[in-house]
């Protein structure tokens, strides 16, 4: 894909096909399915951040008249340690099982211990109080500094740090240590005229989707078990649940409900295997819906991190060396997104000398889950703050410094390959040329700019397009639609089939109806599932030409297909797509096209944001007064939803930078598990979010598409952080810039 292509439907702003159901309240989400005979499940959670479980006595709960079943870890099958596909780190099936229901240890406040199914939700809640758990309370480990000490209380006696020449012989809370490098940083720093080094800290933050985790499960001994749930990947729910309960995949159907946000947090299972285990024991369908406080204490969040960044540059702005160090909190089980943190930290820069070291550290907090560009916002926050400080020290414009050192085609990345065409330079230029950046910083305000890089992924997608006899069709895809992707699928299929998008109905099919598809994540759906749609639709066109050829007694090569019409180039005949579909019964049966692919060649996504903030110097409250988000989409299939990704990512990042953080007491209990005290951005907190879609085509996609979902959350942390510092003439090193923290920075004078 090189020269610009002409499109008939792609690039338009169509009405999404699932829109009607979503504005009328008809769309069914995770908690919206009730089944005949259904009962309710609730979860007993650990009141301790770290404790040995000596005994669980469920007999009093089981004797409750409304209780049908109680389950504990023992109700899972014989779970084996086994690597599984779940998030960024090396996830393990046994860890997953022990996170769904604790085995011999409670590892965080809120850790699920047992679950009850009862006639009503209230009865189930009442019965939880009848479960007697004997704990031996252990000292909790609550930050990475403590967790990494040699004499720290150890969470897992069988965990030995991976990543050193020789694996240590004593267990450690450090699960993995990684080092990546290019060139020689010592030599690079020696060449520098300016070297800036700082330490940073970012908080535990939650994905904050509005819909709590919810599912309805029905066990069936004849192989018709079913789970309905809100998830980013129903095929992965099936894999995990089937493993935990000892079922064959073919005996469990998982239906993806509409999903009320995920941002990575709904890529792993929590309640689904528990609900099915309860249903198996109770002989009835079981529904489980988390409360908001459970969502906060027991799902998500993303890693809090400690970071160091050191950057050296010559007087002319050439960056000569970049060094980083980071320790990410994994929560109770290994698998923080430290690795992508290491890989992304300095990737927006073309620098010959790089060294980044990372640590994945377990401690007594809930196990982290993926969150939009997992691991990148923390690492790139540290990097971008220091790069901006280098620009300041050199007296250079921060965009000019970035342009001078920007990663571009041919740049060697720290994680391996050299870049093909990427759009960072174009994004930086668009930022520099924006009306926003050219305008003066308003009186009393500060301005920050920052770049962000995320890989984006490809992966497995399965698609089936079934044509109806009237020429309309159904697109079955396996990727839950979390932000309007059905519209993109419809447009891409329409582009290939050359018919109105509204003639095609996209459906998120259940696990019985399609081969395995990876979940919605990694900004992969419009890219990878879109490629599968293009393949399936192309497959339909091939068949249409063959069928028309059969009717006209010519070869398929003699049939042209354009504008929804097949034309016999050897004669006068024409047939519309509808006519070919209608005649399919005479030419070999109905027409359907498949696209079962493992998409390769995802295009890296760069973003650049510009932010102006106003700081109330009396209270420390920060208001974002103007914000511009610029990002390379490769090719925007549906520009409105691309802009929506930029704006949504920007605002999540603004929330992370300004207010969002878990507050723990000394026992490891989260003290703000609700939207009142864990404050995500409100409509009244924000200005309009201006967007610029840059399009530098991805060479590996037929239309040039890059993923757009994640990069936008990366720049805000440093764009906001730097702007706040600029407004108060201080250096921000810790997020969030909440009023008390900003006030104390101001007063630190």
């Amino acid at each position, binding site marked *: 894909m090189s020269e610009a292509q002409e499109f008939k439907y792609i690039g338009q702003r169509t009405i999404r096909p699932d829109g009607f159901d979503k*504005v009328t*309240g008809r769309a069914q989400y995770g908690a919206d399915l009730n089944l005949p005979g259904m009962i309710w499940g609730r979860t007993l959670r650990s009141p301790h951040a770290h404790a040995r479980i000596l005994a669980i006595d469920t007999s009093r709960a089981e004797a409750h008249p409304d209780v049908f079943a109680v389950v504990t870890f023992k109700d899972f099958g014989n779970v084996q340690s086994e690597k599984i596909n779940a998030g960024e780190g090396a996830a393990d099936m046994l860890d997953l099982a022990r996170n769904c229901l604790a085995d011999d240890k409670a590892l965080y406040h809120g850790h699920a211990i047992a679950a009850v199914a009862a006639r009503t939700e209230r009865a189930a809640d009442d019965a939880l109080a009848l479960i007697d758990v004997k704990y031996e309370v252990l000292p909790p480990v609550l930050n990475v500094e403590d967790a990494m000490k040699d004499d720290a209380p150890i969470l897992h006696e069988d965990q030995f740090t991976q990543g050193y020449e020789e694996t240590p012989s004593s267990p450690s809370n450090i699960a993995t240590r990684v080092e990546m490098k290019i060139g020689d940083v010592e030599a690079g720093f020696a060449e520098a005229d300016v070297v800036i080094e700082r330490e940073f800290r970012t908080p535990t933050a939650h994905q904050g989707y509005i819909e709590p985790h919810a599912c309805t499960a029905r066990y069936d001994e004849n192989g018709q078990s079913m789970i309905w749930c809100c998830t980013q990947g129903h095929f992965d729910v099936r894999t995990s649940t089937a493993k935990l309960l000892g079922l064959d995949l073919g005996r469990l159907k998982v239906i993806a409900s509409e999903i009320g946000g995920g941002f990575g947090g709904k890529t792993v299972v929590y309640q689904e295997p528990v609900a099915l285990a309860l249903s198996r024991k109770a002989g009835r369908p079981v529904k489980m819906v988390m409360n908001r406080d459970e969502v906060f204490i027991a799902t998500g969040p993303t890693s809090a991190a400690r970071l160091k960044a050191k950057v050296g540059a010559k007087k002319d702005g050439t960056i000569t060396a970049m060094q980083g160090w980071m320790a990410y909190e994994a929560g109770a089980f290994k698998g923080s997104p430290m690795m992508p943190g290491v890989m992304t930290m300095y990737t927006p820069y073309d620098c010959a000398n790089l060294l980044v070291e990372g640590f994945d550290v377990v401690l007594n907090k809930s196990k982290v889950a993926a969150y939009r560009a997992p691991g990148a916002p923390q690492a790139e926050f540290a990097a971008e703050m220091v790069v901006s400080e280098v620009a300041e020290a050199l007296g250079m414009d921060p965009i000019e410094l970035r342009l001078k050192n920007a990663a571009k085609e041919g740049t060697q990345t720290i994680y391996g390959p050299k870049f093909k065409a990427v759009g960072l330079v174009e994004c930086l230029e668009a930022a520099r040329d924006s009306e926003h950046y050219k305008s003066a910083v308003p009186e009393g305000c500060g301005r920050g700019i920052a770049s962000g890089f995320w890989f984006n992924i490809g992966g497995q997608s399965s698609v089936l397009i079934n044509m109806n006899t009237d020429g309309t069709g159904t697109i079955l895809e396996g990727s839950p639609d979390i932000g309007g992707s059905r519209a993109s699928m419809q447009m891409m299929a329409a582009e290939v089939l050359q018919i109105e998008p509204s003639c095609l109905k996209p459906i998120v099919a259940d696990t019985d109806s399609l081969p395995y598809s990876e979940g919605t994540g990694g900004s992969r759906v419009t890219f990878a599932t879109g490629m599968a749609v293009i393949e399936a639709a192309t497959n339909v066109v091939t068949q249409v030409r063959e069928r028309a050829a059969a009717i006209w007694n010519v070869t398929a090569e003699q049939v042209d297909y354009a504008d929804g019409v097949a034309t016999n180039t050897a004669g006068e005949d024409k047939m519309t797509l509808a006519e070919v579909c209608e005649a399919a019964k005479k030419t070999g049966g109905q027409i359907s096209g498949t696209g079962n692919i493992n998409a390769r060649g995802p295009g890296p996504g760069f973003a650049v944001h510009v932010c102006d903030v106003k700081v109330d110097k009396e209270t420390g409250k920060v208001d974002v007064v103007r914000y511009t988000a610029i990002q390379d989409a490769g090719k925007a299939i549906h520009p409105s939803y691309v802009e929506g990704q930029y704006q949504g990512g920007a605002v999540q990042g603004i929330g992370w930078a300004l207010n969002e953080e878990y507050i723990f007491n000394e026992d490891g209990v989260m003290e703000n598990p609700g939207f009142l005290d864990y404050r995500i951005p409100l409509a009244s907190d924000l200005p309009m979010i201006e967007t610029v879609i840059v399009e530098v085509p991805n060479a590996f996609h037929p239309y040039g598409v890059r993923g757009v979902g994640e990069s936008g959350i990366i720049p805000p942390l440093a764009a906001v952080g730097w702007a706040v510092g600029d407004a108060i003439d201080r250096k921000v090193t810790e997020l969030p810039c909440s009023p008390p923290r900003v006030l104390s920075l101001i007063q630190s004078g």
Partner: protein
Amino acid sequence: MAKSHVSTTINGEAVEFLCEPGDTLLDVLRNELQMTGTKEGCGSGDCGACSVTLNGRLVCSCLVLGVEADGAEVGTIEGIGSNDELHVIQQKFLEHAALQCGVCTPGLIVSTKALLEENPDPTEEEARYYLAGNLCRCTGYDKIIRAVMDAAETMRGGA
């Protein structure tokens, strides 16, 4: 505990139901009456996903008891627009792509309707403050505010 008998009006239709004294109006709507268009995001009045009107006043149905609906008029998302024709607000939300996951959308549409009934010509700032009780995590609110302002203009009979 004995259930209470409640007679109410929902979206103009007379409705009767039985509920526990502790059941919220949200519980009743979703679990007794199978009206699942109203969503639960927090159960504590912080997110607005469960917004409904009670005697014309915008409330979080998770903070209202089912028994409080007795003799009252309740308005939910199911009462806005019809099969034949969406309400202008709904149409504008679609045109402006003002939803991504869509779970906050019913609450936002109920709130926007209440806003525009109270104040047909809000400034952007007024709209932002009125809707501050409706959390959206996907959109960053930009397209929602555009949809609301456009709906207001259309409903006023503007261009």
